[in-house]
């Protein structure tokens, strides 16, 4: 529902919520790779593709993935297992074994939830494997009763919880899994086989929030352990931090993956002369218009807010929600330029806390050249959003608008 007052606007601009698959707030953008990804998924071969899906934090990845999963053709052709590592594991200390384990666990759990009847022989083999893992827990064993799948579902949930929360058990389970990793992979494949057979569809796993991990965690998983995490015999979409592509070792990333897709930010200024990009600004305007009546903000403030967002949807939502909050605090009924400028200041302060002395020099250079090079520094700055990447005919970048005044002196 389009907001008619600032309180509702504040709610509509909540930056934390990705949009569900079908939503009136959704805005299409140029060069959205989702159509390509959808087509790739609907092809009958090759099977078992592995995709990397990336974009800045806040660029709308979750929203786009939700949309993808909502397409009827996707739902007809795939058994969808869509989850966030945040919910089942600890993204900060994530290891590749955890990731693989979660893939198996989530496929099994979802199949169970849909009351898919998995054959007894398979459950027996899974159960045997479960005993091996559980034996690390001081020999405590779950008795096998009639409904074999209940203890197993239980086991998968508990084990994931341990990997997420319990530091002691985590290490033991990981060691056990790693030492028998090829068995785990075989187990996952068997579950996939069975689901495919029973449901007569392929299996699609989409894993979100891998881009929220620490950069070195992501590097380990996607550079060093890539051949392990791409083993399972189903289609998988992994979200990755965009910074990975700018790491010095980036070339290595792509090899076992079928294709990588990047959700671009909206270009709101032109690279070479910084003149406004009309089309991009229209998109951002559309973003606001769908959530809030334009009566609640004047043109100048709106344009300034668009400028501050840098073309990143979540930043736009953030600026708007902070500005709305500021206006409410001042007792106003419309958002004015001061509200937007105050929002910008707050954002700038956050960056000030995050950035280090050396960073400013690098940022100044980038602001001048708008060149994106693969380097460790670039990687880091992309990851914390102080530089933003854009893609039209070429890839380029610029400093986050809120940061620009900080480097003016350099």
């Amino acid at each position, binding site marked *: 529902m389009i907001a008619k007052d600032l309180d509702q606007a504040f709610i509509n601009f909540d930056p934390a919520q990705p949009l569900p698959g079908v939503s009136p707030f959704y805005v299409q953008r140029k060069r959205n790779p989702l159509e390509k990804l959808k087509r790739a998924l609907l092809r009958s071969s090759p*099977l*078992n593709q592995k995709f990397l899906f990336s974009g800045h934090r806040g660029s709308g990845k979750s929203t786009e993935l939700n949309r993808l999963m909502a397409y009827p053709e996707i739902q007809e052709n795939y058994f969808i297992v869509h989850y966030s590592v945040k919910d089942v594991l600890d993204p900060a200390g994530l290891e590749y074994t955890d990731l693989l384990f979660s893939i198996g666990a989530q496929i099994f759990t979802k199949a169970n939830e849909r009351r898919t009847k998995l*054959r007894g*022989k*398979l459950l*027996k*083999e899974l159960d*045997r494997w479960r005993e091996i893992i559980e034996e690390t827990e001081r020999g405590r064993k779950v008795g096998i009763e009639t409904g074999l799948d209940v203890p197993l579902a239980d086991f998968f949930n508990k084990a994931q919880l341990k990997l997420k929360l319990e530091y002691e058990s985590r290490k033991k389970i990981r060691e056990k899994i*790693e*030492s*028998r*990793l*090829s*068995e785990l*992979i*075989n187990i996952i*494949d*068997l579950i996939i*086989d*069975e689901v*495919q*057979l029973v449901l*007569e569809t392929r299996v699609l796993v989409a894993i979100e929030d891998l881009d929220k991990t620490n950069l070195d965690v992501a590097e380990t998983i996607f550079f060093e352990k890539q*051949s392990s995490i791409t083993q399972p*015999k189903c289609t998988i979409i992994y979200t990755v931090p965009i910074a990975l592509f700018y790491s010095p070792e980036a070339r290595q990333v792509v090899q076992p993956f079928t294709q990588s897709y990047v959700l671009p930010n909206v270009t709101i200024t032109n690279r070479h002369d910084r003149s406004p990009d009309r089309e991009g600004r229209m998109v951002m305007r559309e973003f606001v218009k769908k959530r809030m009546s334009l009566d609640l903000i004047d043109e100048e403030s709106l344009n300034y807010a668009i400028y501050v967002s840098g073309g990143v949807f979540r930043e736009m939502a953030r600026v708007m929600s902070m500005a709305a909050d500021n206006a409410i605090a001042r007792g106003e009924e419309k958002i004015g330029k001061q509200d937007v400028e105050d929002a910008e200041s707050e954002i700038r302060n956050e960056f000030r806390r995050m950035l280090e002395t050396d960073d400013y020099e690098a940022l100044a250079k980038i602001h001048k050249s708008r060149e994106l090079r693969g380097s460790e520094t670039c990687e880091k700055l992309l990851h914390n959003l102080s530089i933003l990447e854009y893609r039209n005919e070429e890839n380029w970048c610029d400093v986050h608008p809120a940061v620009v005044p900080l480097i003016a002196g350099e």
Partner: protein
Amino acid sequence: MTVALRLSRDSSCILLVSFNNELLRRDVEAELKRRLESEGFSFRELRIAGDGYRNLPAMLVDMKPQPDDVFLIYDLRKILPEVLEYLNYRREDFVEHKISAIFWLDEPTLTEIARKAPDFWAFRSLPALEFKADRLQDAELPSQAEFSGGLTYSTRGELEDMIALREELLKDYLRNRPQNQSTIARLYNELAELYFYKAQFDRAMDSVQKALELYREIEDREGEASALSNLGGVLKDLGDLEGAKENWEHALKIDEGVYGPDHPSVARDVSNLGIVLQDLGDLEGAKENYERALKIDEGMYGPEHPNVAIRVSNLGSVLQDLGDLEGAKENYERALKIGEDVYGPEHPSVAIRVNNLGSVLHDLGDLEGAKEHFQRALKIGEDVYGPEHPSVAIRVNNLGLVLHDLGDLDGAKASYERALKIDEGVYGPDHPDVAIYVNNLGSVLHDLGDLEGAKEHYERALKIDEGVYGPDHPSVARDVNNLGGIFYDLGNLKDAKENLQRALKIDEGIYGPDHPSVARRANNLGMMLEELGDLEGARENYERALGIFERHLGSDHPYTKGVRRSLQSLLDSQTSKAPVE
């Protein structure tokens, strides 16, 4: 012994025989009596009871020996060391009175005689009977070919269940989703590995070939490499080394292309190729391969991962073949520990390592330790595979080897027969493992005195091995050596010499001049040449053998002591009496 006694009916024959097992000794004595009593010989027993027997030669003379008499003398050690003087100074009594005697001795007494009654020692009619039929092959075929599936099981029931699940899935896929070729190929590939573990080789072959075909059709290179790898494993076990090598080389090429040089799949291929090299006798080449594979897997998984344990175990086996027994032992122990930590103490993978450790303990002379290990490995094998499985045959055989060395010849014979029966049932009559058991059976028949039977067996083993490996292979050298021994015992010294020379040449070609196998051949050749009167040649060979054994096995190893004795006696009978260092 029979021959020596026959030939010396009209003269003196002194036989000094050492045994470390009373039952065995009795069997031999009984057999000896059986053969010779029918020819008119009569055996007279003399049990040394106390000091009164010190002047043994005089006693024997007083007993008025007849030409057909053979004295059996027991418990000589009771009157050491005084009797030695008498034996030494009154040795002519034996000749003058044409006394034939068999002295039943233990090892230490034999050594005492050699040292302290050298003139008497020189009068003995045959070299002290230590002629060792070469009973090599504590074969676990310790380097086991690796399959690609990540399939492990710890009981027979689990193996059956895993097969049943995949057979069912396969059936359903073929019927309901035949377009899903990738899954079908994978299931065939996994089933091939599982059938192999059950020793159902026809099914394994069939399955893996179907997998390979499908992977090629869908252009899945990784899958193709894994199927090729499994195919190699099946062929290797069936004895087709060339075929195994071809397929593994092909798999390696693909895996290097897909993954680059430092990937566990590449490590597996390199390791498997090492196994072929090892089997074909290229030990340095095999070692290099295993080391490369180990480096890759340690880099990927760290030092305590099951994959790493496989590499370490294979490395141990080639070190064992190269004669570095301590190195081999270390590696096996490390691999065993990892296996026990990951899988528990009764898992098939653990059993393999326990067996390997047993085999190196055996080589090091620790027979009790070896026996314990083989028994443990055998039990696990029987529990997991059932009583009729090649892995069980291997361990039964290995136990037989230990029993053999401990002197329990009947036990050893039963073991070898059981192992042979199992493998003939599984592989048919012409498999290299069958040759091993046939050879071992021959050697125990040899020790039991059935020379004809032994000869037949050695000839059969040789035929099989030449057929599988060609003429220049360690197994062929072993078979040829053993045939040489039989010819020697049958009195055919010419053929004996030829065979022993051939065996020496083969092993030198394979191992180089400084290897325990070469030493054994040289020792045997030395004994032969001594018999033929070529004392120079004999001395050269003994010295060579002694040097190698001392370097590799140490001064106290039975082999080292045996050669030292032979050399000492040879030198004594030539000129000086200076003891050997």
